[in-house]
């Protein structure tokens, strides 16, 4: 059994790399949808809006195991969507790392959307009006005014989403199980280690790694924010 500060073993590297891959893919792939849904919820009024709002927030209030099971039913190899995706595009989620990313993305989505939506809510609509009188179409208003002004919220939402994706446990283990090298992310590995006699030391090492990654993510977001904020009057 390695000591607390011994170099990382190959197995630990695999877990770290897989965790980062799953969390990064989950966050980056859901970001465009998150921005779109946040914009929809912040600006548009239509019948059925409450349903979109409820669906987005469902994973936040449901037990993660329920979300994971729902994903299994829908995206499993015999699920409605899962079957279609496999036959048309060869895309399989069940018991694959991509399934872990999907579970992480679904669980992180409400947090992502909430943070971005708040920043859209805070934008002074009169600035968009000014942009319109200067000849900018709705698309260019969004690109040149709305998006840059919402940038701090988008960045914050991305970091929160990434953190949530990195820590996702219940939905992941229910949907894609704990397969070393394929779906065994940090939280799953820590849990697994605590279940076997003498696994505490490894669990503790993995826990420290999780803390380091979390700090790195927060520091990176601060640096990025400070860098883009220089000279600007962003909130």
């Amino acid at each position, binding site marked *: 059994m390695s000591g607390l500060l011994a170099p990382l073993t190959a197995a630990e590297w695999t877990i770290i790399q897989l965790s980062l891959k799953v969390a990064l893919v989950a966050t980056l792939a859901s970001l465009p949808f998150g921005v779109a849904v946040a914009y929809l919820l912040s600006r548009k009024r239509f019948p059925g809006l409450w349903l979109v709002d409820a669906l987005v927030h469902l994973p936040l209030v449901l037990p993660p195991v329920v979300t994971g099971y729902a994903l299994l039913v829908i995206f499993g190899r015999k699920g409605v969507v899962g079957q279609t995706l496999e036959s048309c595009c060869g895309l399989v989620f069940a018991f694959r790392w991509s399934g872990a990313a999907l579970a992480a993305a679904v669980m992180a989505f409400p947090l992502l959307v909430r943070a971005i939506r708040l920043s859209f809510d805070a934008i002074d609509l*009169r*600035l968009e009006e*000014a942009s*319109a*009188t*200067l*000849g*900018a179409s709705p698309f260019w208003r969004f690109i040149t005014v709305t998006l840059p002004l919402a940038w701090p919220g988008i960045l914050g939402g991305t970091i929160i989403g990434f953190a949530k994706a990195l820590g996702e446990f219940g939905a992941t283990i229910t949907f894609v199980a704990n397969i070393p090298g394929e779906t065994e992310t940090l939280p799953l590995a820590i849990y697994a280690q605590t279940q076997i006699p003498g696994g505490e030391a490894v669990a503790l090492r993995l826990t420290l790694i999780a803390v380091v990654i979390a700090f790195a993510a927060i520091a990176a977001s601060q640096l990025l924010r400070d860098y883009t904020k220089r000279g600007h009057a962003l909130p």
Partner: protein
Amino acid sequence: MKLDVDITIRRGASPITVRFTLEETVAGLYGPSGVGKTTTLQVIAGLLSPDAGHVRLGNRTLTEVATKVFVPAHRRRIGYVFQEGRLFPHFSVAGNLNYGRRFSPTPLDDSQRDAVIDLLGIGHLLKRWPLTLSGGEKQRVAIGRALIAGPQLLLLDEPLASLDEGRKDEMLPFFRRLCQDSGVPIVYVSHDRRELDAIGAAVVPLAPAAHM
């Protein structure tokens, strides 16, 4: 360029009807607060739809409720200087001034732009951020931003309202020169008759709607 406005807006209990035509280079919409001056500008700019009536500029119908014509604001080519300036906080002064050029079919070229910057006396502010500007500086940048997009009509909504008396007297010569030299027809809204006289505007009084 002739501006023809005949609009009715239902706001609260009593509807507001505003009807005027302008041929003059500089027209001053004048009336007490709450009479619908800003609302009228918003309708002309296409930021608001009236409940009835029309807005025509030159030979273009911009709004006509009866025939459901409504040209969106970004296709009207009407510059609007808001009471509060509304500069983009994430662009420098130069970025704000150039903003409309990339969208306009008839933006000012570099030398015309520099002439506007000279006229407004804002050449030394180009690298500054809007947050660091005084009220008068903000208003001049906002006017420059609207002009540099090359509008066919310029709307000024109480551009001096947020300034104290001393600043107002400083700004009035700018407006007088602007109205004479910009070559763009201007609608200038104010509740202060002296301001309109000082810039030489043809005054269009707006009266509160008669209660029936």
